[in-house]
């Protein structure tokens, strides 16, 4: 595997091409123009696809300011001004969706970072090749299964009669818990599923970054008598610091965005759990597929989009300050 530092050096070199050989200015301009045209042509199919699928739908955002009736269409529906937003803010919906999104995301960031770091740092200390290979393969495996399958796994543990955990609680402790009717557990359950599915992969990424760092400092530290955990704390962790900070800053830009598949399938879309599991994405989904309440759904999405955009711009500035380089 190529080390990260090598890669970084190479891509730096790519930024500063060797000086162009001497050519007449006119000829170079001609060549440059045709090159630009050819490169633009290469981009064109993707640009068209993005225009059709991502830019055109933006027109539909006017629905947020309408009382949209499908029969009347986008241009025939009644204009409502900000009434939809008023409704969202005055009802308890907005605060519920936002609280849940922030809680689920924060828990995910905190526990995800802690577990993946711990595993990544520990993996780096393992020298047994076979154990390393097996453990890496196992811990990244959950990343490859779909959220619907994770939902089934969760139900195999928490299901009403059949679930392993529920039946153990019942037969050993005489406690009957109907998890799918008790919202209070679900921030935790979703977080466990989230960490279970993604921490292994992040750990392997952290591990890979560590293998690209300079080994000689570790040797020096070992000769000076620093133990394994001291090395971990004073050498490995600082090497990952920037990556961790950037990850956290970037995730905070998406604080209102929750993976729809995760919440929908882990909670099995159980209506009883909405007080703790309903987030903007699932609410929009219901507005579209079951309630037909297009305008309110679009307004919710617009709020999320605008907040996300503002946060992304802010966090990108912060990241630039932190790392002295733009993210994009």
């Amino acid at each position, binding site marked *: 595997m190529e080390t990260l530092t090598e890669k970084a050096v190479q891509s730096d070199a790519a930024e500063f091409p060797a000086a162009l050989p001497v050519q007449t200015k006119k000829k170079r301009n001609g060549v440059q123009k045709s090159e630009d045209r050819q490169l633009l042509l290469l981009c064109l199919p993707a640009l068209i696809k993005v225009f059709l699928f991502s830019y055109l739908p933006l027109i539909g955002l006017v629905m947020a300011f309408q009382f949209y009736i499908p029969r009347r269409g986008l241009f025939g529906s009644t204009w409502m001004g900000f009434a939809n937003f008023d409704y969202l803010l005055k009802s308890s919906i907005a605060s519920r969706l936002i609280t849940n999104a922030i809680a689920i995301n924060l828990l995910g960031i905190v526990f995800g970072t802690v577990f993946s770091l711990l595993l990544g740092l520990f*993996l780096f200390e393992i020298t047994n090749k076979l154990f390393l290979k097996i453990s890496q393969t196992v811990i990244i495996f959950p990343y490859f299964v779909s959220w619907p399958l994770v939902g089934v796994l969760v139900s195999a543990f928490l299901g009403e009669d059949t679930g392993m955990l529920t039946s153990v609680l019942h037969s050993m402790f005489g406690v009957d818990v109907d998890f799918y009717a008790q919202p209070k557990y679900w921030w935790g359950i979703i977080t466990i599923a989230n960490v279970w599915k993604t921490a292994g992969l992040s750990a392997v990424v952290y591990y890979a970054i560590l293998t690209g760092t300079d080994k000689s400092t570790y040797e020096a530290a070992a000769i000076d008598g620093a133990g394994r955990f001291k090395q971990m704390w004073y050498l490995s962790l600082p090497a990952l610091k920037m990556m961790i900070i950037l990850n956290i800053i970037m995730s905070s830009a998406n604080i209102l965005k929750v993976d729809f598949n995760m919440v929908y399938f882990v909670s099995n879309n159980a209506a009883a759990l909405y007080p703790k599991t309903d987030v903007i994405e699932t609410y*929009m989904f219901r507005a579209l597929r079951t309630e037909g309440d297009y305008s309110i759904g679009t307004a919710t999405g617009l709020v999320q989009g605008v907040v996300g955009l503002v946060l992304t711009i802010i966090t990108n500035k912060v990241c630039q300050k932190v790392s002295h380089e733009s993210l994009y």
Partner: protein
Amino acid sequence: MKNKPKAYESIYTPFESIVLFGTIIVFMLLVLIPFVTLISGSLSNSDAITDYGVRLWPRKFTLDAYRVVFMYPEEMLISYGVSILVTVVGTIINVLLCSMVAFALSRSYFRYRKAITVYLMFTVMFNAGFIPQYILYRNYLMLYDTYWVLILSPAVMVGHIIMLRAFYSALPEELYESVRLEGANQFVVFSKIATPLILPGIATITFYSVLTYWNDPSTAMLYTEDIVPVALYLTRITNYIEFLKYAQENGFAGLDMSDYKIPEATVVYAIALATTAPMLCLFAAFQRYFVRGLTSGSVKG
């Protein structure tokens, strides 16, 4: 990784080895136990697990669940067909379009580089959401309930472009300069020179793409009705079983369903395993590329 472990590196104090190996092994078990539970559940007798719950070892071993699944395999096979079609065509389109853009964006002399980057990044930062998309696809692009919506909607993933751009940028600039001097066409440079040199990168992105398409239930939930990919087939069955249970308990449309034997949780487990199997094989075969792509992508993101 390529550094040979020094002698002192592989010596652990008992405390160190317990903490290090112990933590990793515990996490491995946490990953594996749910799968073992699922397999054991699918091999159990359905009455036994309703009474006593699933355990790590099958209760009253039986293959009944699999018999039910494979007795009428048509629907599942159709779902498999849908998923394979969508995944193959979608991946080809996605990888082709992404690599074309990534190549162009990796050229420092490309005039529209900045503009196109902003154009693409904006879609990541801000999007219209499900509902305007739904109306556009359904009423104007006529994509509702077609294979094309499943194939095209996820295509051109910006993350893939960024990763591929890093691969193209990592190629030595002299290589490009020499062919530029000869006046080579950029299409030829892209297809004959640059891309063959970054095949590991292409492999990584292909794998990513396959993973995204195969494990994507939400596009189908939103934009199709009759086309059911494998990822959603599982959900449909679960919902169907729940509906039958509800109908049996509460009655539905005056039908007496009390005699009807509903396929139980064990069948759901069996289907869950049957729909995950292909991903398992792919995972085993291509895991290396996946990790490699991840680390290279994180350098220049």
